[in-house]
């Protein structure tokens, strides 16, 4: 009788114990240190991670730059933008429409942020009408834009105007679409 009791007790103690040791043993099994191949792979992954970080950083910088440009910051992108964007006019008119005024505001901001830059405003016309009248009209358009910039605080001495009348059309086609493109002021930086 006592023998059976001790046997149960023993079993009760031993089996968990066994279980314990095995799990412990499992737990204590450590991974072996990496081979040479693995080390290279690891470096690759690290490099990729760094590159990704760099790319993110660059994107962020671009975004910041764009923000700055919008608010008139300097740099190459700003110059290109200044010279690329024209303002347009209606036939035989030299008054500035709303969208022309918006573009001019950006240009004024650029000039403010870049006090060493000076601008040349070219006045252009479409081919209809007399060349001579159009030379004067182009002059009026360029001066219209110049006055607007002056009113925004840019010194008149920083802005030159040149009229080309209908002599240098952007678009040599005929018809309303082409003509609309040619009734413009173009901007250059000195």
């Amino acid at each position, binding site marked *: 009788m006592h023998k059976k009791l001790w046997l149960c007790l023993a079993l009760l103690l031993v089996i968990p114990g066994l279980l314990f040791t095995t799990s412990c043993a499992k737990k204590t099994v450590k991974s072996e240190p990496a081979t040479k191949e693995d080390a290279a792979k690891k470096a690759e992954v690290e490099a990729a991670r760094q590159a990704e970080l760099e790319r993110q950083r660059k994107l962020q910088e671009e975004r910041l730059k764009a923000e700055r440009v919008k608010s008139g910051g300097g740099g190459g992108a700003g110059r290109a933008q200044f010279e690329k964007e024209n303002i347009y006019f209606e036939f*035989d008119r030299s008054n500035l429409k709303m969208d022309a005024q918006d573009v001019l505001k950006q240009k004024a901001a650029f000039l403010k942020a870049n006090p060493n830059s000076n601008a040349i405003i070219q006045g252009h016309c479409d081919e209809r*009408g*007399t060349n*001579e009248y159009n*030379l*004067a009209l182009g002059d*009026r358009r360029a001066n219209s834009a110049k006055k607007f910039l002056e009113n925004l605080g840019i010194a008149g001495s920083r802005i030159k*105007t*040149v009229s080309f009348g209908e002599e240098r059309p952007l678009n040599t086609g005929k018809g309303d679409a082409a003509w609309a493109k040619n009734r413009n002021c173009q901007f250059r930086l000195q």
Partner: protein
Amino acid sequence: MTERRRMYRICVYLIGLVALATSLFVPTLGAQQYDYIDISNPFLKKIPIAIPPLKAATGNPGEDALAGSVADQLSKSLAFTAYFKMLDPDAFLIDQNSDWTAGGVNFKNWTAIGAELLVTGSIKHQESMIEVELRLYDTFKERMVIGKRYKGWADDQRRIVHRFCSEVIYILTGEQGLFESKIAFESKQKGKKEIFTCDFDGYRPTQFTKNNTINLSPAWSSDGQYLAYTSYVRGKPDLYIKNVKEKRGTVIAKKGINTTPAWVPGSFSLAATLSFEGDPEIYLLTGTGKIIKKLTNNYGIDVSPTWSPDGKKMAFVSNRSGSPQIYVKDVATGQVKRLTYDGKYNTSPSWSPKGDRLAYSGMHDGVFDIFVIRAEGSGLFQLTENTGDNESPSWSPDASLIVFSSTRLGLSRIYVMTAFGTDQRLLLAIPGEQTNPDWSRGVINK
């Protein structure tokens, strides 16, 4: 008796010879003695004229060819005036044996084919000199109207022909200056625009500016010695005044535009549009570029001046009423009156050398046409229609013809027509596109 008869005969011959000689050197008869030309429209009834080949006087080599070429040039030059109907030489009834060039004209042969006027002549060619005799006959009245003899180098034939034509036109119309005048114009090729000049009939186009940029608005001074024009040589529209022969001159290079020169008749001064004060206005300048006074004072575009022949009035283009119209300023009183009320876009005025009318270019339905209007504003008359865009009219010195640019053929070309809009024809065509002609006044030293 025979002695006396011989003496008598000799006297008769001598008198006849003297008479003949003097008839050749008689100064031109008074103007407008012949009322062939209907003043109200001189071009409606064209005068039939016959110009047979000249007679080769000596038979020297090349004389025949010269005889033909001089008659041909005479014919072309007179045809250019549009007053005449040139009769077909094939219809001429010429008796080859009779010396019809030396006063023995059989007028019946000419009236029979309908000729009212006849030009005959002879030409002598010796070494490099030529001697040309030319006569104008009234075939119905059977008399000689003009008889001239010219001597010159063989190369001078065109000049001789033109001298004679001047005499013919003076006798018939009382006007002068056409045959010695020249035309300046712009020609554009590959984005560059240069100034060219040519003779009144489009012959001998010659490039005047050679600076490979944009050159505009040529204007002859009254004596034909200077050409004013706008040029972008320095990157902006500056006004150049250049002596035609010596190519020296002045530049007006103020800020803004310096353009549309218009010489004051008979004076070494000109009006021009300058915008250095911030707005395009018209100023009066000396021929050396000094400002004499400001002629317009209106915020807006004031451009394209043209003077009345007495220099007392100036017409110009202004958009002070909202769109380009033509106005006339009395220089003495300062009063400005609007001239054009028809149409919304009227530019390019040119005052007739006779002073009574102006030609201009007006836009309607999207195309440009040449109009003529009396200086007081009445008598509006349209000269071109359905022929593309017609712009930049300029009068001949005798006010009989108008030169202008037209796109009726596609590319812009220089055309000429009578002051009544008849006989519209191409003046010349050189590579590129031609625009903005200006007709000089009177005599030009070639």
